[in-house]
Structures are given as structure tokens and as C-alpha cells.
């Protein structure tokens, strides 16, 4: 097993600061040293937390049944930190596994408790190990499925047209209503495809940010949160407004305050708040 300190050697970028437990990393662990672009591709290529764990285990040629979960836990946490540093969207499932790993680690510090329970069902380490094993099996099975010869890729079924003669009533029947339903469904799908594009063209978040700032500027007072939305403009508009407010909050242009529990939420310009 690799010593944790050996991870902390190669600098990658001075901007990267990740915290692992109480340690602040200003350098990337050695075994994570890959070019930025490649890193993003790598991180995005994981199918989920189990896949990531499996990757770490395989990378070190560890035996799934024998490897030290606490050692893997540290590396896993480094990846999680990296993902958030690089603002990759982090699915909740990653955090659940992270919490489990932390639990396992903390239990390892209290070995006597571990012995007391003794039951595999209750041992998060045993449960996690089992899940990784099961996922590994699924992965290799799906790789074998992928290797099977299949139509379109490896096989070419022969299907010849027939000479044009009178083709009559020998075909399957379709109900007109069916066509209508199918088309309605397609239109819906097309709309879903295009939604981002439409949103960007008509109601951009940026434009909405401008409107909201102008509005708050004019009001010169905290404005009720709801008043910044126009429900009649439809869902896209509401979402755009919400995104705009969140973006403004993030860049500290506005402040969103709920004075007391259950009170109305109010939004104000940050500098208004500061100056007056």
C-alpha cells in the first residue's frame, strides 16, 4: 500500500487547493498528476462512486477482498475534493459513499467496537466490499456482452427489396390515432431537445440578471423574493429568474435574506445593504 505522504509531491497548479480532512493540499497527489483536460475526461468517465473505487483498487493492483478500505478512503476523498475543485457536477451518490468511507475510517480507530458488532450485515466495510465486488462482476459481464457480435456493428443481415408489383393489403395495420400519438410524442421529445437553445435565445440568464439588478436598484429596498418571478411568463422564465438570482448571490451582487423563520424571503443589492 502506498504511503499517503508520497501523494503530496508533484505540483500541478498553484490554484488547486483541496482539503482532505485537516490537510490542505496545494499540490496534486503524485498519482493524480495528469494534464487538466485529461483529468476532467478521467473524472467524467466514472460511471459512479463504485466505479471510482474500483478504479482506485485496480490502479494499485489490490485484491478486492484484501485491500485496506481506509487507505482507499483517503484517495477517494482526494478525488471527491478534486471534482468539487474543478466544479464537476458531483452526484449525491458520491457523497453517500464518501460518508460511508469516513464512517469506516472512524470505526477503524476504535477496533474494539468493531469486534463487538462482528456482524457482517452491520459492518459498513463488509457491505461496501460486497457492493464493489458485485459491481465489478456487473462490469465484466457487461464488457463481455459488448464483445458479442451484433447487428449493425459486426453482423449484416441480408434483406433484399422485392421487385415492384402491386403491393396490396398484405401489410400490418396501423390505426391513424396511433400516428397522432407517436407524433405528439416526437414533438415533445423535440421540444425537450431544443429547450436549452430556446431558453438561451429568448430568456437568457444573463439578461435576467441585468433585469433583476435594475429592478433592485430602482426599488432601493429589500424586495420580496416572489416579486422577482413572473409566473405567467412560464416555466422557462421562472427558472431563468431563479438561476439569475443564484448567480447574483454567488458573485455577491445580491443578498437573499429570510429575517426570521417562515418570514418572507427578501432580496437586496449587496452594496445597498453595505452602504445603508
Amino acid at each position, binding site marked *: 500500500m502506498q504511503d499517503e505522504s508520497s501523494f503530496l509531491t508533484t505540483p500541478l497548479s498553484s490554484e488547486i487547493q483541496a482539503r482532505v480532512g485537516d490537510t490542505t493540499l496545494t499540490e496534486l497527489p503524485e498519482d493524480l498528476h495528469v494534464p487538466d483536460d485529461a483529468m476532467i475526461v478521467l473524472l467524467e468517465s466514472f460511471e459512479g462512486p463504485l466505479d471510482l473505487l474500483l478504479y482506485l483498487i485496480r490502479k494499485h493492483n489490490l485484491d478486492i477482498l484484501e485491500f485496506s478500505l481506509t487507505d482507499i478512503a483517503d484517495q477517494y476523498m482526494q478525488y471527491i475534493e478534486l471534482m468539487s475543485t474543478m466544479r464537476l457536477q458531483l452526484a449525491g451518490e458520491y457523497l453517500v459513499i464518501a460518508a460511508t468511507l469516513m464512517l469506516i475510517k472512524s470505526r477503524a480507530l476504535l477496533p474494539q467496537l468493531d469486534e463487538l458488532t462482528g456482524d457482517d450485515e452491520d459492518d459498513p466495510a463488509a457491505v461496501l466490499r460486497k457492493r464493489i465486488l458485485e459491481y465489478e462482476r456487473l462490469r465484466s459481464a457487461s464488457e463481455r456482452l459488448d464483445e458479442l457480435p451484433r447487428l449493425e456493428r459486426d453482423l*449484416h443481415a*441480408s*434483406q*433484399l*427489396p*422485392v*421487385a415492384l*408489383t402491386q*403491393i*396490396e*393489403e*398484405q*401489410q*400490418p*395495420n*396501423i390505426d*391513424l*390515432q*396511433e*400516428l*397522432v*400519438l*407517436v*407524433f*405528439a*410524442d*416526437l*414533438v*415533445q*421529445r*423535440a*421540444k*425537450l*431537445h431544443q429547450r436549452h437553445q430556446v431558453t438561451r435565445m429568448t430568456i437568457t440568464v444573463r439578461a435576467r440578471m441585468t433585469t433583476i439588478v435594475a429592478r433592485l436598484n430602482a426599488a432601493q429596498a429589500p424586495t420580496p423574493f416572489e416579486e422577482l418571478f413572473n409566473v405567467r411568463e*412560464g*416555466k422557462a422564465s421562472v427558472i431563468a429568474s431563479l438561476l439569475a438570482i443564484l448567480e447574483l448571490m454567488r458573485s455577491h451582487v445580491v443578498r437573499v435574506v429570510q429575517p426570521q423563520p417562515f418570514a418572507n424571503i427578501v432580496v437586496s443589492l449587496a452594496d445597498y445593504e453595505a452602504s445603508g
Partner: protein
Amino acid sequence: MAELQTSDVKRIVEVLLFGAEEPLNLAALMSTFEGEYEDPSVFRGVLIDALDELENDFKTRGVELVQVASGFRVQVDSEHSEWVHKLWKRNPPRYSRALLETLTMIAYQQPITRSEIDEVRGVTTTGSILRRLLDRGWVRELGRKQVPGLPILYGTTRAFLDYFNLRSIGDLPPYANGDASLVQPETLDQPQIISSDDAPETTSQNVAD
């Protein structure tokens, strides 16, 4: 690379004709064999001889080699077509969801190109679906779109209207009422109307029994 024997070429051309989804022209054949011959004009002759021989061979096999606008293709000859029709009549194939989607796209959006259909369906519309609709006589080529590549424009036929008892395309029912844009995709998921395999076959046949 070892030069191919003339008999190999003939067999490969046969396979290509059977495996191709669209008619093949000499240029397509030449480029498929690229690197396998020295002298293009000699090889062109080899190809033409192969096609000639195949045309003869096919005569005894219920298929025929025909030359259409875009090239050569093998099809079931007219004498045997009735058997294929009988097969369809007695074993009506279920239309796949993919075929229905393609047909509705053409009906409502004609004239439309294959890539425009693909764009909405989010998948590649295989040539075989379009050919099937063309074979069935419900869809026809209307012309070519005046954009780079001059893609074929498809539309529906009189036979399509007749089948659905419509006088004109304008009689097609509106496909959606009101604005459904806020509806979540989940609620719109159709039950699989016709998915190729839903109905379990009543007779499961195999050679052994």
C-alpha cells in the same frame, strides 16, 4: 497485399450486394476494393465481368440483379415476389416504433430529409426503414433539397392517404391540443404501442420438434 482472384472478387461483390442497404454503383465498388488492385481500368473490367456473371447466377435463384438510378441492386424477382407478399400477408410484421416515428415525421413535416428525421428522433434512421416505407408505397421521393449534398426529400403518397381514409394531408388530425410544453417527459411516455416484441409469440417453433 496478395492480388485477389477473380473468383474472390465475384464472391465479395455478391456479399456486398446482399449486405448493402442501398444500390451500389461502380465507383462505390471500386473504392471498396481500393488497395487491392494495380490497374484501375483492368479492375473495372473484372468488376463488370463479376456483375455479369452474378446476373446470370441469380436467374436460377429467385432474385435478380437490376440497375437503378443510383447503381446495382439485388431484389427478389417478380416471379417470386408473390411469395414474399404471402409471407407478409400471413405473418403480418409488427411495425416497429422506429418505423411509426419515421412515418409520422414524414406525414406531418413533409417535405423532409432523412437527416431532419434523425435530428428529431435522436437516432439514425436506417435506410431499411425508409426503404420499407417506400416499398409499402406510403412514402415517395419528392425531389432534392437545395442544400449542400442535395439530400432527398420525402413525402407521403396517395396510397398513404387512402389507407388512412384521408382526402388530403390537411385532414391529418392535429397532433397535440394546446400547449404541452410544461408537461414532464415522464407523463408523456406512451405505453409501447407497438414495440416489436411485446406480444409473446404463441407458438415457439424450433427445428427439433
